[in-house]
């Protein structure tokens, strides 16, 4: 029974750690399926987290924080779009630049405004997205297996968690069942086909990066005022890159993206759980192994040892009308 409780705890922690990854990876999905590579997920998430933390601290409203996070992340997305769509710049370079600007500005402004070493003040109550307790949680708590699972995994999740997981089927629907999705997938494979079909490549790609901005804004909001109670300098801590790895691992498909994020979230949860505690029969496992595992797995995947990850064909290539 103790093992089961531990498992539920790890799974609950997995859920919490998966959310920002999932939102960021889905963000990357829209951008990259449209042919715009984005290694700036990290920066946008961080900027979103800061905007959410700062706004929530000042206004006392989580919703205001969410709104500002989305605005800021979308603004950075538009910079990426301006560089890589309008000016046909190098998408990798642009992404790197955005990560730096976000890392620098959040810490700089945080220090200048709040003087807490780059943190924003702690918030609580309405300034955070609090857990939503589902009905009957206590009533069925005593039911074995079902009770703890219901209480720890389903009930008590906050709004953004629900949004993140609902975004998965929604993204699937958008991508494969709507006109926008058809065009989005087409523009990532062959923008010339889209152009000659009388559709604006530029506007289509801009819409994709805007969606990417919205989702990274949500991811940042989650970090700052749902999972934590304030923004902390560099709090994205490489999650944007893990999300990128998950996106590749899932071969740019929405449902597999969720499973990849759950896997990477699980690894993280296990690492936290195992910190310093010896595992039976194995002894102490260094946490670094779990930290490195998502990256190692992604490299192995990229090497073609677990199927092949074929990126969108026009990804990373600016579109020029050429005859």
């Amino acid at each position, binding site marked *: 029974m103790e093992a089961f409780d531990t498992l539920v705890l790890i799974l609950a922690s997995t859920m919490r750690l998966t959310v920002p990854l999932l939102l960021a990876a889905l963000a990357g999905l829209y951008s990259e399926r449209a042919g715009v590579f984005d*290694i700036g997920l990290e920066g946008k998430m961080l900027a979103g987290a800061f905007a959410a933390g700062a706004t929530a601290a000042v206004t006392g409203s989580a919703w205001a924080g969410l709104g500002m996070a989305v605005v800021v992340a979308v603004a950075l997305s538009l*910079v990426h779009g*301006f*560089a*890589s769509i309008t*000016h*046909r*710049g*190098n*998408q*990798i*370079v*642009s992404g*790197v*630049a*955005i*990560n*730096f*600007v*976000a*890392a*620098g*500005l*959040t*810490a*700089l*402004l945080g*220090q*200048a405004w709040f003087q807490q070493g*780059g943190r924003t003040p702690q918030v609580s109550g309405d300034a955070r997205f609090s857990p939503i307790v589902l009905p009957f949680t206590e009533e069925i708590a005593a039911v074995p297996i079902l009770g703890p699972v219901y209480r720890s995994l389903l009930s008590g999740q906050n709004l953004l968690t629900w949004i993140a997981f609902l975004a998965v089927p929604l993204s699937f629907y958008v991508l494969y069942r709507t006109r926008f999705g058809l065009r989005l997938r087409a523009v990532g494979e062959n923008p010339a086909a889209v152009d000659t079909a009388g559709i604006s490549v530029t506007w289509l790609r801009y819409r994709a990066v805007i969606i990417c901005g919205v989702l990274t804004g949500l991811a940042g909001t989650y970090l700052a005022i749902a999972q934590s109670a304030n923004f902390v300098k560099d709090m994205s801590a*490489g999650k944007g*890159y893990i999300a*990128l*790895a998950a996106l*590749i691992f899932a071969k740019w498909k929405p449902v597999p993206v969720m499973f990849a994020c759950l896997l990477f979230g699980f690894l993280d949860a296990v690492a936290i759980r195992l910190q310093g505690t010896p595992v039976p029969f194995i002894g102490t496992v*260094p946490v*670094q*192994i779990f*930290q*490195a595992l998502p*990256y*190692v797995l*992604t*490299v192995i995947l*990229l*090497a*073609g040892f677990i199927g092949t990850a074929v*990126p969108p064909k026009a990804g990373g290539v600016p579109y020029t009308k050429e005859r």
Partner: protein
Amino acid sequence: MSRPFGQLPGWADYVLMPVLNLGVAFGISALVVLFIGESPWEALTTMLDGALGRGEGIGYTLFYATNFIFTGLAVSVAFHCGLFNIGGEGQAYIGGLGAALVALAFDQVLPWWLTAPIAILAAASFGAAWALIPAWLQATRGSHIVITTIMFNFIAAALMVYLLVNVLKVPGAMAPETRTFAAGGQLPKLGWLLELFGLKIGAAPFNVSFLIALVAAFGVWVLIWRTRFGYEIRATGISPSAAIYAGIPYVRLVVVTMLISGGLAGMMALNPVMGDAQRLQVEFVGGAGFVGIAVALMGRSHPLGIVFAAILFGVLYQGGAELAFWIPTISRDMIIVIQGLVILFAGALEHMFRPALVALFARAIPARAG
């Protein structure tokens, strides 16, 4: 025949455009300072004074510049081959392991000038080794090197923390770092060099690595523009299909180029590990691998440009530290912002002003000729 669309005179391409792009980046940085409520002019003078005002400041500036020359060269060599090595950070980190192991092994046996060459070799080969797998995967399996090198940065970070915490740490000590190297594992400071100009080095860790970096820069120039291998690198970087036609072996070329790139990144570790801290510490690279991207972009992948760009970033880093000290509302993170803006404008948006400039020149030149 007509000139291809969008061409500029050489000086405009190599001087005017970077200066223009840099100007915009700094202009926006000034706005950021203004936004915080400080005076950009005061910030600028504080920075310049802190970085170049005294011998110690200059020493620090050149110390930082040393890091950036190495990492900038690393990025640029790969650029010439059409590869984006974003893994300088990890390669430098692992390079530090090589340098530290040599220093730990020989510091009590050999004088520094015998340890140093071995350490250079070790740092370079460790850095190169860390670039090998991404290089090989890119060359033979087409795995995107940008992604694999990013992944290797994180793997390196995890590996190094593990090693420092569990293997290399001094028993009983708290800090995850090696013991301090003895004199044989320390690179001497270049106080005498500054004294030639009447400057006092003070506490600045400006050391022999700087000279090694300059030699490396010259070496890269020779490699790229004066050797057969450099010719092959450039041909492959510009036109892979022409390179295949010419019989240039792609796999070998990509792997060797990345080894050189990783080696240069690895050598960066000499400066902070043996030249400054005299021990191996967690996260000693401190983003220099990424600064290398900005430096290479700004220096247009030319060693001379890289040295200048590296010194400029040295000024930013040292000046930024001073700035944070004198104007506490502007933290050191200001440098990161400037760095990001430089990458944005000198890199991703490098062609933003090109059409306007081309039009300007097109209007000016026939007028002169006619």
